[in-house]
């Protein structure tokens, strides 16, 4: 996957996290954010499918389990991604903030290819995504991710929109398995840094912090 060259001055840094539901990434992202704030950095947080301008549209579709086909799904979420990238991420990077993003274009690749789009097609859609300074991928075996999930899986997160033949729970299990398989492939290609998420939170956090520490040393010459 190729990223777009910055057409702005990147004074801040972009830290992104990836992983399936139940990988623990959202907990990690919170901890990283708090830690950086405590070190005196100004942080900005953004997450997948959260652009204010499109929220009512997604809310309706997700709440009512309205089926949209894989292309509609892909384009709509890419629309959301670019709105946030242009209006939240890039302005923050320009003024030197640390942007922490829960999911990045990799989520598009993972989910859209799991829904049958060619990887090339999805990479083309996300060709204008800028490159993260750090991309952390929290890897857990499918059975662990599934076990961490306590509520009944939703329509889209279980891939039920594809018409998978089982109940929500079983659909979720196979769909998570598919996504983990692809995530590991991306990690193998060096696009995302695999962090073993299959351990208690307190043991996973230092791993995340070390990677971020290296970034700050390399990029800003600061030891934190």
């Amino acid at each position, binding site marked *: 996957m190729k990223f777009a060259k910055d057409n702005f001055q990147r004074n801040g840094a972009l830290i992104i996290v990836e992983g399936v539901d139940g990988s623990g990434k959202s907990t990690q992202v919170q901890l990283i954010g708090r830690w950086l704030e405590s070190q005196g950095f100004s942080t900005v947080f953004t997450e997948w499918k959260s652009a204010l301008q499109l929220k009512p549209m997604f809310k309706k579709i997700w709440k009512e389990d309205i089926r949209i*086909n*894989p292309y509609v799904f892909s384009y709509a979420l890419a629309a959301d991604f670019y709105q946030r990238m242009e209006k939240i991420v890039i302005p923050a990077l320009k003024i030197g903030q640390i942007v922490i993003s829960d999911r990045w274009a990799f989520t598009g690749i993972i989910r859209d290819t799991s829904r*049958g789009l060619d990887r090339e097609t999805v990479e083309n859609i996300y060709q204008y995504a800028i490159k993260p300074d750090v991309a952390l991928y929290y890897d857990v075996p499918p059975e662990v991710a599934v076990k961490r999930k306590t509520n009944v899986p939703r329509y889209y997160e279980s891939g039920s929109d594809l018409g998978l033949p089982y109940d929500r729970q079983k659909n979720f299990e196979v769909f998570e398995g*598919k996504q983990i398989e692809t995530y590991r492939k991306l990690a193998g290609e060096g696009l995302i840094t695999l962090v073993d998420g299959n351990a208690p939170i307190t043991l996973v956090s230092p791993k995340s912090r070390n990677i971020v520490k290296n970034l700050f040393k390399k990029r800003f010459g600061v030891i934190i």
Partner: protein
Amino acid sequence: MEDTKIVDEYAKRAVEKLKMKKEGNLIVFEGIDGSGKTTQVRMLVEYLQSRGIDVVFTDWASSANIGKYIQTMRKDKIEVVPRTFSLLHAAEFAERLENLILPALSAGKTVVCDRYVYTAIARDSALGVDEDYVKEIYKLAPKEDLLLYFDVPPKMALERLIKRAIKENTAKQTTKKGKKGKVAGTISPAGTIAGTVAGTIAAKIGKLDEKEKASWTDYATMYGYMKDVFKTEKDEEAYYAFVAKVVEKYKTVTGENNAVVIDGKIPADFIKTQIMSVVNKKIFKAE
């Protein structure tokens, strides 16, 4: 992980559905708002129906979920960055493709589209989105059998929109007491000019009493309305510059796709005859 194969299998099926075989005919109308194409689309649909042809009409940005939301965005003036605008319309198109266009075409029906991919190419690229990017996200669109491009000077198109809005609103408001309205803001290039003009005129007419209304409907006062559409001269310039870009791209891309160019300046009845003859010749292969 053997289980993941089942995901691949179902995913493939979901995507293959969008590559259905086309049996029926696809007729596409393109042109800027006010070029006269919508009037002609209606007349052609009626004509085809009168000949006993099973015809399905479809409008731009009209799908059940994404289309509906695009309409809300227009109404509420929610603005997004050009690429988001472009992808959202591609999403809308993909939704309509699966739910309306493809089922009709594969059942052998004739589909008539008021705007098609050329609208996206012309408009999005005028907004600064790379043309190849737009073409790529519309790659699922089946190739039309007949493309009609309505050519009309932008100023004339705008005059028509104003006239239409005046007509519709004075007719509507005489039966009801007009609501006091505010004159709408300036035109956002990406929104529909038709919608903005209609809103502005409706607001303006809503403010007039019955007697005033009667005298405000003549052609000459239209130029007064025209001033209301644009807040400043700069807005007016920006609008025409944008439309010029759209028209230029429209001409190139419809030209490359063998469009039949319709002179939108001539009276609607002449155009109707012309279109009927083109359709009969190109679609129904009649002499």
